[in-house]
């Protein structure tokens, strides 16, 4: 187990505190399926996005004032007067969006390749916990600049809890610390916005422990059969992740430097006014599908329950999809429905950004109904009725075993080049 290290000091420390062995084991020799495609980059990208958010967030906190009279101005001061303040803030605001982009891709990758199936159910559920924590963190962070969208977003979202029978209004007052969103609310949101990212780090560590228990799933979805199916994480995947990071940073920089406010709302550059509601309250884009579900239901409590249900259903996904075949590559019908649910999610995102009237509401109702139908009816039914294609015997077989029947099931292109 313990690796040999050349440096005597490293050996001395490692003997007493085996962090170097641990890192060598988990990040260097860690055996990884050799056929991972670029879809597997998004996990490490999410981790990097989290680090970017924490580093820029801590530096922003050095200049921000969490008070209703000063918050808005302190953010403008960061933008105008603080050295590189504009850069750090734009990295943080766009970083939030890109964190969600990366995580959503990561989730859909897990859904397509059945990464939630045994023995990775807890790994998947921890991921859903991370998503929920991210949403709470992002929501509270959006309140801090104390613009109009901050204020009214906070008002609408905290009011969701008033839908709870009997105790709802008391809970909302408790969350606010007053009778409306006000200074007390801003202060506690700041406190929690600072705390939750570190809770996310904790859950990410659990996510990694659960991942390293059985290792990554892979595009074929078949278990690793022998050491021939694996390659060490370093240098093969460190370099692949590093390349992916470079591509990611190009897109990220394009937004930060050339369209830093593209994903935001102009209304949030107007200071919060408790007496005037903006004409259209729209959450940040990454909340739009859930917002669409909320508004699709004509009943307040029903809308709230369905919105939370749209995430709750992900928790039980491992038990809804009973098909023993993991990878969508070998599930001809599942594959079609997978792309429909992707389109459905995109449609909900679009509808969430539109006013809640006329055809948009009707479309949102159909899209919402389909969303739940996919998880609660289609997936369980497919587990019974679908005939999967034959699976390769191992990860290596389609590449070197001459498996003629698997022309369409080849692994990542790089595997064909030896």
């Amino acid at each position, binding site marked *: 187990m313990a690796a040999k290290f050349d440096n005597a000091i490293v050996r001395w420390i490692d003997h007493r505190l085996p962090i170097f062995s641990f890192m060598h084991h988990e990040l260097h020799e860690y055996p990884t399926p050799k056929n991972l495609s670029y879809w597997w980059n998004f996990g490490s990208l999410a981790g990097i996005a989290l680090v970017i958010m924490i580093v820029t967030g801590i530096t922003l906190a050095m200049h921000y004032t969490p008070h209703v009279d000063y918050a808005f101005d302190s953010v403008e001061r960061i933008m105008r007067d603080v050295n590189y303040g504009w850069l750090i803030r734009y990295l943080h605001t766009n970083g939030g969006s890109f964190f969600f982009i990366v995580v959503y891709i990561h989730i859909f990758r897990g859904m397509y390749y059945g990464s939630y199936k045994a023995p990775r159910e807890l790994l998947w559920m921890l991921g859903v916990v991370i998503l929920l924590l991210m949403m709470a963190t992002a929501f509270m962070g959006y309140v801090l600049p104390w613009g109009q969208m901050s204020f009214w977003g906070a008002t609408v979202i905290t009011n969701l809890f008033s839908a709870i029978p009997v105790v709802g209004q008391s809970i909302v007052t408790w969350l606010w610390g007053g009778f409306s969103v006000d200074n*007390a609310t801003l202060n506690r949101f700041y406190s929690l916005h600072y705390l939750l990212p570190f809770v996310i780090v904790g859950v990410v560590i659990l996510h990694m422990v659960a991942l390293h228990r059985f290792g990554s799933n892979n595009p074929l979805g078949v278990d690793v059969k022998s050491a021939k199916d694996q390659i060490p994480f370093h240098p093969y995947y460190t370099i692949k992740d590093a390349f992916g990071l470079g591509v990611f940073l190009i897109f990220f920089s394009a937004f930060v430097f050339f369209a830093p406010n593209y994903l935001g709302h102009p209304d949030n550059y107007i200071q919060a006014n408790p007496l005037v509601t903006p004409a259209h309250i729209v959450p940040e884009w990454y909340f739009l599908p859930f917002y669409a579900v909320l508004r699709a239901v004509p009943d307040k409590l029903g809308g709230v329950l369905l919105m939370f249900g749209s995430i709750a259903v992900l928790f039980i996904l491992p038990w809804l999809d009973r098909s023993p075949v993991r990878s969508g590559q070998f599930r001809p019908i599942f594959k079609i429905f997978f792309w429909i649910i992707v389109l459905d999610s995109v449609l909900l995102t679009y509808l969430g950004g539109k006013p809640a009237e006329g055809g948009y509401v009707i479309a949102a109702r159909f899209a919402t109904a389909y969303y739940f139908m996919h998880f609660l009816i289609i997936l369980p039914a497919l587990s019974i009725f679908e005939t999967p294609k034959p699976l390769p015997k191992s990860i290596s077989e389609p590449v070197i075993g001459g498996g003629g029947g698997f022309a369409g099931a080849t692994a990542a292109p790089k595997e064909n080049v030896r």
Partner: protein
Amino acid sequence: MAETQQGETRRDFLYIATAAVGAVGAGSAIWPLIDQMNPAADVLALSSIEFDLSTVEPGMAVTVKWRGKPVFVRYRTPEEITSAEAVPLDELPDPQTDASRVQEAKYLILVGVCTHLGCVPLGQKASDPRGDYGGWFCPCHGSHYDTSGRIRKGPAPLNLFVPAYEFVSDTTVRIG
């Protein structure tokens, strides 16, 4: 622990008693940490305001701030009062007579917060849309309120809330 037939019961009792005392202790230690998030004394102290109604003319609506929220004061026209009183109760999602919502029929005083998700409905300014029932219209999710501030159409479950208020004099009202 097999000395007596109930050899384990004394130890079990100790376990349970310890756990119970621990749970009560933890609970009472946690409560201050939870209750600190409830409105503080200074927030509660700001809970009433006085308003001079003599500045409001018939048909006019004024918004005042109470507990950080807008309060709508509307001097209703006779037609608005009649139309509010004429509505049969079984047409209302949250049935309340107009008389039960006002102290003096011409002054309608409401908390201007939509009971759906807390937006401020439009209808205070003459140029605002007032919805299908001549009262208020919430732009966020499309709730329509009538001239008594009652929900008529849309996702809001309840009528606009009537705050506690009293007339200190003929033209002054204390809200809260």
